[in-house]
């Protein structure tokens, strides 16, 4: 028995040791922890600590800049890849990799690249790379960014730095498209010589920081690119994007000085971050608007414009923003927020709330005693979404509308929309990475939502058609603004508020979140 027991204990210990050793091997491959950044409180002065650590809520999807639809992935890519154009601090589109450009006709723009731009492997950026990059995303329909670039027909090379972009039809949004992720330049020669899998494991861009390491679901490490065309960034020796999905853990890392920036801090932790010595909350309006999408299909009470208006008047957006969101929202009656092309300031930072008017509109529509409706809502997708939905239900009840809330897990919610099984209303948040109002107001186009919302307004249809190919910028802006005004009156969607971006920041750095939710490291400085 004694020998056998020893044998058994030996086997067990061997299994444990083996598994522990396997783990240790992998552990040794991890980057050494950021010692100055680990469990100590932030020192305030950071001369010796030139490592910037940023806590993200999710890992990047991949380094294929054309094959994801993920803002937090782009926030990381933004530091490694340059775009042809870029929005400045005032959201005005400015050339980035492009030196000069000229609109030759409605379908063609000629551009010349800045000289001396290099990829991280030393190859120069040329027109060949532009053609390779843009034609890939414009023709490969399996890529997730294809819908945003399929308008490009081809890229014609004139010389090493000069090229023409030709579109299938007049494309007023072309520059908006070229100032986002799809126009991040890929190295043609490097990819063709080494293959895609090699590129995805060892990505190369032209941006201020170059790739060092990616440990999936753990961290992405970058270092400054010595030959950056605007000069080497020397503020940080290393930038670490850490993946910390759990909100409370992310906040704890910030409080203990483990990270310098924590994204998406929930309202319940705002006070904790602000009261902690060495950290504070920074808030910025996002480009995401939360709304109720109403069903205008015949047979639904919401097919009557008066009922839709009544719902709008019964909801106190100000209270939603102040109480449910704890100040994390700005009421609006348009989805096209500031910074977007076509923004209508008259409809922003305002809302309709008049309970008596809501009741009288319902009575006019033939519902003096109200009616019963279903409101679908995701839970945990948007800031305080469940609280907002419950509060809306309470507000509508006061107007006489009995609301049956159906909370849904996100994938089921998406499935419901996809199968067009939505009932009277659902809560949705929509961003606009294009920063072009045309994409927001396209949600009123009848053909697009046939069977889902069935909303149709003839004037909006005409304006949408006219603005889609209008190369006159001023006219197009006026057309988009007019659509917003009609929609605010006709209420196919009840626009509620724009969410804020809520970021916890260490006092040792200077960082201001931006509306596009990018984390552009060259703008982050030590104090």
């Amino acid at each position: 028995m004694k020998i056998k027991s020893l044998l058994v204990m030996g086997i067990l210990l061997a299994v444990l040791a083996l598994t522990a050793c396997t783990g240790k091997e992998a552990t040794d491959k991890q980057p050494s922890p950021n010692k100055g950044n680990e469990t100590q409180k932030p020192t305030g002065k950071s001369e010796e600590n030139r490592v910037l650590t940023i806590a993200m809520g999710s890992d990047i999807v991949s380094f294929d800049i054309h094959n994801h639809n993920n803002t937090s992935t782009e926030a990381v890519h933004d530091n490694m890849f340059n775009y042809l154009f870029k929005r400045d601090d005032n959201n005005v589109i400015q050339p980035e990799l492009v030196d000069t450009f000229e609109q030759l006709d409605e379908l063609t723009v000629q551009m010349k690249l800045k000289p001396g731009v290099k990829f991280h492997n030393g190859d120069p950026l040329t027109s060949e790379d532009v053609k390779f990059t843009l034609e890939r995303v414009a023709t490969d329909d399996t890529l997730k960014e294809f819908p945003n670039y399929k308008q490009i027909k081809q890229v014609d090379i004139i010389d090493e730095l000069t090229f023409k972009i030709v579109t299938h039809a007049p494309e007023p949004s072309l520059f908006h498209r070229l100032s986002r992720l799809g126009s991040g330049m890929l190295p043609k020669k490097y990819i063709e010589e080494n293959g895609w899998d090699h590129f995805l494991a060892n990505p190369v861009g032209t941006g201020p920081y170059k790739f060092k390491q990616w440990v999936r679901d753990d961290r992405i490490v970058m270092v400054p690119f010595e030959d950056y065309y605007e000069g080497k960034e020397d503020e940080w020796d290393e930038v670490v994007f850490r993946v910390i999905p759990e909100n409370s853990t992310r906040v704890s890392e910030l409080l203990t000085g483990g990270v310098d920036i924590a994204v998406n801090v929930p309202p319940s932790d705002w006070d904790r971050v602000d009261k902690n010595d060495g950290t504070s909350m920074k808030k910025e309006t996002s480009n995401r608007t939360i709304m109720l999408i109403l069903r205008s299909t015949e047979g639904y009470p919401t097919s009557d414009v008066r009922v839709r208006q009544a719902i709008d008047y019964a909801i106190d957006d100000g209270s939603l923003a102040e109480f449910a969101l704890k100040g994390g929202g700005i009421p609006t009656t348009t989805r096209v927020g500031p910074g977007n092309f076509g923004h209508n300031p008259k409809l922003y930072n305002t809302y309709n709330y008049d309970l008596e008017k809501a009741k009288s509109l319902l009575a006019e529509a033939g519902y003096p005693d109200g009616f019963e409706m279903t409101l679908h809502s995701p839970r945990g997708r948007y800031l305080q979404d469940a609280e907002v939905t419950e509060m809306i239900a309470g507000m509508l009840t006061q107007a006489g509308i009995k609301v049956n809330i159906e909370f849904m897990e996100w994938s089921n919610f998406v499935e419901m929309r996809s199968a067009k099984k939505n009932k009277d209303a659902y809560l949705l948040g929509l961003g606009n990475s294009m920063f072009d109002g045309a994409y927001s107001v396209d949600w009123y186009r009848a053909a697009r939502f046939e069977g889902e919302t069935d909303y149709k307004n003839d004037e909006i249809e005409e304006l949408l058609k006219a603005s889609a190919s209008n190369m006159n910028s001023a006219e197009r802006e006026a057309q988009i603004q007019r659509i917003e005004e009609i929609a605010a009156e006709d209420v196919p969607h009840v626009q509620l508020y724009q969410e804020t971006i809520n970021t916890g920041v260490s006092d040792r750095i200077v960082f201001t979140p931006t509306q596009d939710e990018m984390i552009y490291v060259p703008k982050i400085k030590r104090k």
Partner: protein
Amino acid sequence: MIKFLFKRILEFIPVLIIISFIVFSLVFVAGNPVALMLPEDASQEDIERLTVALGLDQPFIVQYGKYMLGLIQGDFGRSFRYNTDALPLVLERLPATLELAAASMVIAIIIAIPLGVWSATRKNTSMDLLATGGAVIGKAMPNFWLGIMLILLFSVTLGWFPVSGRGTMAHLVLPAITLGTGIAAEMTRLIRSSMVEILSQDYVRTAKSKGLRDFFVVYKHAFRNSLIPVVTITALQTSTLVGGALITETVFSWPGLGQLLIQAVNTRDMAIVQASVFIIAILVILMNLLADIIYRILDPRIKYS
């Protein structure tokens, strides 16, 4: 013994086929992942285009047939989300999860053995009640809650351990305690009841009557015999460990299989879910086999049949 092992290994095959079918069906029934891959404002046309491009428009039987054909050749398919082969991605994560599981098991053993034995030797005293009550609480505490509490106390307030991540031994302590506590509670109760039974046996009374010191009676005579069920149950805790790792890894940002699997389920990344469950199933089956072997070594009365 060899015959027994051969027979058990052959039994793996139908089990793994059944598991692959169940997981494939569940992920299939959960719906089309394409809508989740695209942004909220994607058009129906975009959704349909990508569905066709990924072959997800084909009937269940065709998709499953293709999957099984790949599986026979060792190909688990490509991850939709990461656009890379699923199996290497899963295997890449395995060491982190095994490291956490091994450390949790060590912690569970360190807590459970002395506590279980101590509690059994003080049967029905207030100390025993305290220990068994503690075990019930340990088992009842949800991993995510315990994890967050440990972070708040030991990392935020006391600053003893890093909050999250993987890198040094210090990073391992809090997640291992979180995951190990539930298992320790289970083991404590098991050791206690096993010890209580053994301590009432005649040979223990004989040993005591010979005038042996309590320590020798308890640890040399009784404890060794009480280990038979404990050792086997410990091996069977693998599935509990993996289940607990899903939550613990998320709370502590531990880059293991659990985190990968949760992400994959959320995004309906079929290939990753399949590959992860497959690997976990193999681990659990192997540990069950190990438990069987250990049991037979410890207790020769059990025959290989």
